[in-house]
């Protein structure tokens, strides 16, 4: 492996050892578990022909969204990515409307116009996934700018990937947020692959958190599979943003449990690394920290039922009306 990957990381996640309440642990587990099984159901629906186009599972990365969103209030914003189901679920979305959107029904969040890649949930202040890698970074930065104009106390989390970190808008947005002290937290989900290109092949410096300090943005690297570490680090960043001290960059290291999308077997992935990462499954890590096993079981059972009901709701939902759609298009 290139020595580029061996460079020292900027900082370790702060307060990772701080105790968090069982209530928080259980909520994070609920969201991580929901995401894991939502994705597995989606893959099933895909194979059954209910889902068209692209589907990018968040399998293996669930702890990042679950941990980060736990640090937010309902009025705070998130900006998501094409691999965004976990963000949407952890921000409180209705699973029925999510499944309905993913199979293109009228009852979906976007009335079947968006699909998996454009999930948007206004009721949860989720400003949407994006089909253009990196495009959400300035959008989230702008949401933080809007917060300043409106004199509100909200904050924004922008989720994006290592691939997106090579788009010009990433350094531009960090600089912009830093210059104006905007209340935004950049969460870089480093899953080690931009589709199939490994991080060490596409970065001159693989310490991605270090990209922050160059722009006056503190950069912190965390174990992305540990929801507690993600949560405590994000919480510090949220507090910093709320105090008007500006943005933070959090690099959360993780690994996809499969290929880029549902039909990509991911044969290019380092199988040894994959085994190592699977051994530190985000759900298992979180589970070990929860003492009340009875409650865990209850959460799982309730979620299994909720997911089944949500899938049934989606399947029984009407298709969007073609006539209504055509009527909405200007003639010329």
């Amino acid at each position, binding site marked *: 492996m290139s020595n580029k990957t061996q460079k020292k990381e900027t900082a370790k996640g702060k307060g990772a050892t701080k105790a968090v309440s069982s209530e928080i642990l259980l909520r994070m587990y609920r969201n991580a578990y929901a995401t894991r099984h939502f994705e597995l159901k989606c893959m099933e629906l895909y194979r059954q022909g209910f889902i068209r186009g692209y589907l990018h599972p968040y399998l293996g990365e669930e702890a990042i969204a679950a941990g980060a969103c736990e640090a937010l209030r309902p009025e705070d914003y998130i900006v998501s990515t094409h691999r965004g189901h976990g963000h949407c679920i952890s921000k409180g979305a209705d699973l029925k409307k999510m499944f309905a959107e993913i199979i293109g029904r009228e009852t979906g969040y976007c009335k079947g116009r*968006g699909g998996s890649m454009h999930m948007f949930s206004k009721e949860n202040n989720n400003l949407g996934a994006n089909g253009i890698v990196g495009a959400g970074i300035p959008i989230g930065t702008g949401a933080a*700018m809007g917060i300043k104009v409106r004199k509100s106390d909200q904050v924004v989390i922008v989720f994006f990937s290592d691939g997106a970190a090579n788009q010009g808008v990433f350094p531009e947005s960090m600089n912009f947020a830093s210059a104006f002290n905007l209340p935004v937290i950049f969460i870089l989900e480093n899953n080690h692959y931009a589709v199939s290109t490994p991080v060490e092949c596409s970065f001159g410096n693989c310490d991605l958190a270090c990209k922050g300090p160059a722009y006056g943005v503190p950069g912190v690297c965390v174990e992305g599979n540990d929801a507690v570490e993600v949560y405590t680090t994000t919480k510090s960043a949220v507090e910093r943003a709320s105090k008007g001290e500006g943005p933070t960059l959090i690099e959360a290291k993780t690994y996809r449990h499969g290929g880029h999308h549902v039909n990509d077997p991911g044969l290019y992935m380092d199988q040894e690394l994959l085994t190592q990462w699977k051994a530190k499954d985000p759900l298992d890590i979180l589970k070990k920290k929860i003492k009340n096993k009875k409650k865990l079981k209850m959460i799982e059972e309730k979620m299994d039922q909720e997911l089944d009901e949500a899938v049934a709701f989606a399947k029984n939902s009407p298709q969007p009306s073609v006539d209504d759609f055509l009527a909405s298009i200007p003639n010329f």
Partner: protein
Amino acid sequence: MSEMMYREALNRALFEEMRRDPTVFVLGENIGERGGSYQVTAGLLKEFGAVRVMDTPLSEATFTGAAVGAALTGTRPVVDILFVDFTTVCMDAIVNQAAKYEFMSGGQGEVPMVLRTQGGAGNGIAAQHSQSLEAFFYHIPGLKLVMPSTPSDAYGLLVSSIRDNQPTIFLEHKLLYMTKGDVPDEAFNVPLGKADVKKEGDDVTLITYSYMTLKCLEAAELLEKEGISVEVLDLRTLKPLDQEAILASARKTGKVIIVHEACKRGGVGGDIAAMIMEEAYDDLDGPVIRVCGKDTSIPYNLELEKVCIPTVADIIEAVIKIT
């Protein structure tokens, strides 16, 4: 009624809208203390402060994308891009984000932003600062496109654009900023999607917009002396397009010439001509003619620059040929 310059009318609209609505704010390069290259944002910083009048870093892709995010979350940003030529740097934010967000989100995410910029040749600033790129935006569903020619229209259309809930590209022309015209003293707005007959006539229709409206009016006046009655229809907004006004004038005169500064190839004139022929073929005396910019980059040399864009003489020649 007061006489004012085009740039002053735009400035007035910004002042009034920012006073009326605290969620309206402007952002762009050198728009604060300097007041923008053409003084359109002059004085705003002093009254509204640096949060609502943001001098941005030179990052068009990011601050245009940021405007989308700000618009999604309850504000009305007015983005200032120095030259339309620079919008190529922020096309993702315009085409894939601003134009599509409301659609992709099933109506949940409206993007009430305005992107003000300016184009056109005539100042000797060569190929990367003189283009007319409206066809880019004309082609994209989800965008509105406004190109006013007079101070009064500039004021009234900017007011409407700021209040509109869809992303609007507000395209000014660098040679219009210093032109003068009467603007009513009371607040008003000009609705988007309404063309304006700038001069009535019976023999031939000139369909035009932006700076070329002035050229068409000049040509029409000279032709009038020769006994040719010319109607000048200023489209004012290209999207929505006032199809009704276009067809009414085409049917009235039966002879249509479309005049624009942008290159003829792939220009909006071709699209409007096709629409007229589809809808009003039987009322036409002959084919719709286009008098447009040449298919070239704009050269620096003055004499070379002049021959690239339509002149009054070109318009007169085209009219005489078909009347």
